[in-house]
């Protein structure tokens, strides 16, 4: 089922959580709402779910207006950030809840409920823990139960609010791969909220980058990462070096402050060398080297005194034999220039 949010505005007192937001999610896609806290992503998700109602604008499922329908009528599966499992019910009862509360004429029989819950327990690989209480489960297990509970009612849309936010790094990684796999199997239109750009880029078919109650950019992960539409998106998706400068006849002169342009360069797009290779470059002094991990991270002080972050492969680092306090040349391989301050549109 496709989801459309049309000119949604939502205020909480003086605070505008969503400002005229338009979003179209085609059927069967897995979409990430990505943004810093306070960007309105969770509010948008809750408005789609019917847990919150917009001040203006409408929500459509498959083209039908659902704006005034309650959460109960929308048939969405919602997974809460802190799982919201029913603490007095076992895993089995939690998953069966949505089937048991149906009106008598549409309620499945006991045997059918039993079979459905078993099937879901198998899906989340927790068959042996059916009679445990939520408090006896780990965070990752709780998250999976919450997902199974939401899927039990066979929702037409699956909405997840920071689904991996409260888990430790390792479980997080496992679970998000599992979610991707699950989505590939059941193809249910899914929207998840996250503030973790890595998570969004890895799991989603499309990423919706949000900031200050507005959508900054919508697109596939490669597109938003490689072709950021705004300085915010560039800044938010990955590490970045920010220089001020000016543009003169197609050449960027960085290091001259407050001259109307902002230059962004990702750390892995800066190269270090001992000799200038003829192209554009600047001098810097190596201040700190961190060689733990797949990439070597170098912090240097540019000739005008600002810190610059550079990433290079371990091979390159070995060849270079870089040492602390050494003077080097930094060569930008690619850079992105935006006019004006950080919130303006690209040129």
């Amino acid at each position, binding site marked *: 089922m496709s989801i459309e949010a049309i000119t949604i505005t939502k205020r909480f007192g003086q605070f505008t959580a969503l400002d005229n937001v338009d979003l179209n999610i085609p059927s069967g896609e897995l979409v990430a709402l990505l943004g810093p806290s306070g960007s309105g992503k969770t509010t948008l998700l809750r408005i789609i*779910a019917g847990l919150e109602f917009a001040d203006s604008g409408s929500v459509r499922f498959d083209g039908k207006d659902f704006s005034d329908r309650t959460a109960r009528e929308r048939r969405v599966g*919602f997974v809460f950030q802190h799982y919201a499992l029913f603490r007095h019910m076992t895993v089995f009862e939690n998953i069966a*809840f949505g089937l048991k509360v149906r009106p008598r004429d549409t309620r499945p029989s006991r045997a059918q409920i039993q079979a459905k819950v078993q099937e879901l327990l198998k899906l989340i690989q927790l068959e042996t823990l059916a009679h445990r209480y939520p408090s006896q489960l780990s965070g990752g297990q709780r998250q999976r139960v919450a997902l199974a*509970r939401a899927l039990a009612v066979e929702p037409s849309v699956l909405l997840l609010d920071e689904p991996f936010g409260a888990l430790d790094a390792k479980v997080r990684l496992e679970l998000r791969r599992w979610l991707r796999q699950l989505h590939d199997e059941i193809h249910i239109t899914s929207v998840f909220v996250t503030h973790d750009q890595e998570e969004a880029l890895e799991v989603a078919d499309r990423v919706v980058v949000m900031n200050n109650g507005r959508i900054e950019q919508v697109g596939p992960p490669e597109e938003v990462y490689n072709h950021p539409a705004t300085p915010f998106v560039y800044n938010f998706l990955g590490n970045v070096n920010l220089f001020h400068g000016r543009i003169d006849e197609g050449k960027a002169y960085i290091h001259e402050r407050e001259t109307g342009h902002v230059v962004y360069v990702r750390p892995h797009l800066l190269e270090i060398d001992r000799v200038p290779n003829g192209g554009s470059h600047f001098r810097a002094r190596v201040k700190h080297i961190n060689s733990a991990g797949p990439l070597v991270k170098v912090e240097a002080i540019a000739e005008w005194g600002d810190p610059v972050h550079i990433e290079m492969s371990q091979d390159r680092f070995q060849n270079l034999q870089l040492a602390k306090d050494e003077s080097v040349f930094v060569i930008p391989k690619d850079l992105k220039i935006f006019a004006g301050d950080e919130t303006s549109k690209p040129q």
Partner: protein
Amino acid sequence: MATTFTLRNMGVAASSRAAQATTEGIFVRWLLITIAVLFLGVFLFMPLAVVFASAFAKGVSVYLAALREPDALAAIRLTLLAAGIAVPLNLVFGIAAAWAIGKFDFVGKSFLITLIDLPFSVSPVVSGLVYVLIFGLQGLLGPWLATHDLKIIFAVPGIVLATTFVTFPFVARELIPLIQAQGNEEEEAALTLGASGWQTFFRVTLPNIKWGLLYGVILCNARAMGEFGAVSVVSGHIRGRTNTMPLHIEILYNEYQFAPAFAVASLLALLALVTLFVKSFVEWKSKQQPDAIEWMRTNEPMAAPTSVTAGAKVA
């Protein structure tokens, strides 16, 4: 196995050392304990013992006769009736108020909380007088009630009203912090799963608050049966008709019938003991529930500080 053993031993050693670090000298310890025991003895156990001793001072037959006397039976019946109406009313009201306050934000919320606490802060005698001023013969609605032949003051309805008013805050006060600590998420989850409002309440909300609720009801009931001041003002002390147990005891005592007075008093004392026992049981039971307190402690870091206080209150 060996590792766990040493670990456990280390834990014991560490904790006993910690205890030593914070403990007082033997003299101070004994002094404090003696003061506490003496205080408890003089102010709690002695009166309790005196009640039962005096009740049986003239033998078991006098004791039983005092309870079987028609006026005493009427007083017991009236007390049960008043509590039987006041407690369910306050149960429903308490849940409704706690629900509204715990789950929603609205204008005048803190005013409502203050209003709920009013019966606690106002002297019971004043509460009784208020009803006299409203429903009494010279009161606001007095003439209208008189023409319609309705009696509230110096009659059973007045006693029920006064009891209900005085015991108003118990359930609500117990539930508000509990419901606030639990938040809305489980209810929202139930709604998205297709549950109706009532289903959500009976299957999700109520099970989560049941121990706090029971605790509030126990306290409410104890107070409803023991209330003296407010009921005394509205009752009129008509023997066999508008006397509750506490009022009956007072009359007997004033007539120098000590043994019967204490006999009826012993029932109230017994009620207090039963209440304490049930209360301890409820506390123990709520701790047994792995979900009640531990859940909050382990699960939601955001809710943890408030939920611990709520848990401590029940505990």
